[in-house]
């Protein structure tokens, strides 16, 4: 758990992005198109104006990361 948090912390620093659920959103890449929202099987993602939010329902399936047109989503593995 501690290790995971440390790794999260560094990823956060590295990408200057939010850590949400099991997926990292790189805000520098995201163009808020909503494609990820459409494919999320547990409806954990929401597009709010110009950013996306991922809630705790995320089950780390990784489909959103594969679909993203610009690679703004990254699975935490």
């Amino acid at each position, binding site marked *: 758990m501690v290790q995971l948090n440390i790794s999260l912390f560094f990823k956060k620093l590295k990408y200057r992005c939010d850590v949400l659920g099991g997926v990292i959103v790189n805000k520098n890449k995201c*163009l808020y198109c*909503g*494609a990820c*929202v*459409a*494919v999320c099987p547990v409806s954990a993602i929401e597009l709010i104006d110009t950013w996306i939010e991922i809630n705790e329902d995320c089950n780390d399936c990784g489909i959103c990361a594969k679909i*993203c*047109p*610009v690679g703004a989503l990254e699975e935490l593995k």
Partner: protein
Amino acid sequence: MKDHYDVIIVGAGPAGSIAAKTAAEHDLETLLIEKRAEIGNPVRCAEGVGKEGLKQFIKPDKRWIAADVKGARIYSPGGIKIEMSEFGPEVGYVLERKIFDRELAKQAAKAGAEVMVRTRAIALIKEDGFIRGVKAENIGDSFDIQADVVIGADGVESKVGRWAGINTTLKPKDIETCAQFLMTDIDVDSEYCEFYIGNQIAPGGYAWVFPKGKKEANVGLGISGSRTKLHPIDYLKRFVERKYPEGKTIEIIVGGVPVTVPNKTTTNGLMLVGDAARMSDSLTGGGIIHAMKSGKIAAEVASIAVKAGDPSVESLNEYERRWILEIGPTLQKSYKAKELLLKLNDAEWDSLAASIRGINFEELTAFGLLKELALRNPKLLWGLRSLL
């Protein structure tokens, strides 16, 4: 803003605005909400549209027409060119969606609909198994708005359907993930839309060049969500480096296009329209006309339901019956064709293209092209025989 409306429409794209306009014209108390601060932006669209379909809804206006297109050129992976031109329903416009979408919203407002921007639906109000309105958020304030009927026009990222218990989740193979550059200072033929097919260029999709005037074009591509070895933006950079190395990009657009057939589109007190209902065409990816058609039908059905005091699913199923009658067969055929074409390799595409080199098309549509292909390549396109 009132506490109660006859109909609330979530999303001010072409589907939502046409629904709002139609509802207001039928004397319904209508509210159109849009989560963005600005209607029409970002566009998330290649902006091509058929003239015939468009004219059913709005008089063409040069303020939102970027190019008048006379035909299409399709290039196979090996570079064989198929040209389709002159008269036919596929001939169309390349729009300026930012202005077009705004114009449709203005027409809805002029017809009497209320419009609220920067207003996001955050949940549906449910009572006794009926959808009775939306919970919305506007610049930090949240509030409930009641309605007899809610129309979900909230696009590819639709939540309204899911909140109402309709599963609109797309499988990776049923979404095209797309990237587009609006490029300027490039040489384009302003009268032709170009399509490039090939698994190296855009696996499970195609690349497009849609002119927006003499020196400008939407240059983009979509790939199947089941074939994302690279991200669309990477394929696009590669395509553009080769095709327009000197071009300048003045806008980047990305997005997902549903390439499936609609699931359920109605429930008690609710209808889904346009991309939210997954009505974009699986073969071409085009969605504007289907969006506007479904928006209009939904509003007409809402009008009957509201006036009869019966917004039950049985009553709203008239909407489903009518859109299936109008666009159902096309959606089904396009989906079948997409499923089959996804399997073709580049050599097969080249042999298909070679088989129709230099012929005259009777019907200048995607289906017209498919028919010719299927007639000349019965073995390879055996699965398409039912579409003839």
